[in-house]
């Protein structure tokens, strides 16, 4: 059963339509709209297919990543999956690395879908990683026996809100501080070396290490987490990158002097 959870790819189980407010589909007093039925009806209205095809078509649409909506009709299946996630979380709290892998792989697509509606596409990957780190750090706060999802999405929402706050404060700061100073003239003898060109000549791993530490300003631990290597390995990569860049800059300077 756990094999069904493997891999970060999406599955039909994750597909669900957020039902529209019941009032929109049941304007008549006394008519009760079951959420999954409302979801199918909403999908029919939006995409123009018959109601019998709705669940299948809805699943296709969600897999196509165009729609964040959908509610799987099989609630029992979803409950079972939720229970399994809770069990994996309990195992993770006890220090089970395999449970950690299974759980993070399983929730990955759901977290990504959750963030997609809240975070700009360019920042999605960074926020996704932040959410995972936060989940990992706050794992002791999960209460055993409770469903995992409210806990999980509360943390994800908190990280997304933090990110939005950071982005907006950065934007207002940039607005306040005005235009950056102009670059040195291209033909100036004292011009700075073209960092992009130099970086492009480094091996990818070294380039990534340099960019994360020196351009993005990440800490060693955060950069190592993002690169998926140990802090020591990242230090070695960064050190090699510095040495290679030094050599390249020296070589360029000598070339210009000739």
């Amino acid at each position: 059963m756990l094999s069904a959870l493997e891999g970060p790819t999406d599955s039909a189980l994750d597909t669900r339509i957020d039902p529209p407010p019941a009032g929109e589909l049941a304007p008549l007093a006394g008519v009760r709209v079951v959420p999954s039925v409302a979801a199918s009806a909403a999908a029919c209205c939006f995409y123009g297919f018959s109601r019998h095809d709705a669940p299948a078509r809805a699943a296709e649409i969600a897999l196509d990543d165009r729609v964040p909506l959908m509610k799987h009709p099989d609630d029992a299946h979803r409950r079972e999956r939720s229970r399994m996630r809770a069990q994996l979380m309990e195992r993770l709290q006890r220090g089970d690395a395999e449970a950690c892998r299974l759980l993070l792989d399983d929730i990955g697509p759901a977290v990504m879908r959750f963030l997609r509606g809240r975070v700009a596409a360019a920042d999605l990957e960074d926020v996704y990683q932040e959410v995972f780190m936060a989940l990992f750090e706050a794992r002791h706060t999960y209460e055993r026996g409770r469903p995992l999802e409210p806990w999980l999405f509360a943390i994800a929402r908190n990280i997304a809100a933090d990110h939005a706050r950071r982005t907006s404060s950065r934007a207002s700061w940039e607005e306040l501080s005005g235009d950056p100073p102009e670059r040195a003239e291209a033909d100036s003898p004292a011009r700075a070396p073209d960092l992009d060109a130099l970086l492009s000549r480094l091996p990818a791993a070294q380039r990534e290490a340099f960019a994360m530490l020196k351009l993005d300003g990440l800490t060693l631990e955060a950069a190592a987490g993002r690169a998926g290597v140990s802090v020591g390995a990242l230090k070695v990569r960064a050190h090699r990158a510095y040495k290679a860049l030094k050599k390249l800059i020296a070589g360029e300077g000598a070339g210009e002097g000739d």
Partner: protein
Amino acid sequence: MADAQHSAHAERHRALVESLAAQVRPVRPLWRVRVRAGLWLLLETLVLAWAATRTGDDHAARFAHPFYALEVLSFAGAAAVAGMLALRAAIPGRRVAPGEIAIALGLAVGGTVLFILGAPVNAGASLGAFAGRGIPCAIETCVLGAAPWLALWWAVRRAAPTRGALAGALVGAGAMLFSFALMRIRCSIDEPAHLLVWHLLPALALIGLSTLAGSIWLRFRPRAAARM
């Protein structure tokens, strides 16, 4: 293009998961909210017992007065509710219903109304005498609230509150409303102006400070992510 993006994401996901899995260690889950709230109330009871034994008043005679008993119980009840809500608000995904906050608020307001109606205002006292008798009470209100505040703050901090200001306010309310109730037992003055200015006002000021402190220091920010 989409395939390339998807595979790049999958690669990064895999690296991240492996990196986190390599750091997995057993953690001690938080105790249930009601257990932690019970322990905190036990601490409050100890402070109460300590405070009650250090006054020469006849507590039984004072509690025989229904307004007084109801007032002290209202503040103690409001403090207990606020403390429990603070602990619950610190767990991601656990909500604090507005109705629950209204209960705590209602109890505190009810208690305030009771002590205002419970005794006549003494308009004849000089400002010096009023302050001379009041300042020690204000200091004691703060001192008696310190230990419960620290204990509750630590308990909330150990969890992951996503709304720092709310958590800070509830921590402050839990500790300071209880401190107010304790001071009603310790202080023999029932005069409403004294209670408002030297008991309630310091408690409210500290709740405000706690809210501010909560919004700055209590909000859960993952260490790794905060540095990113």
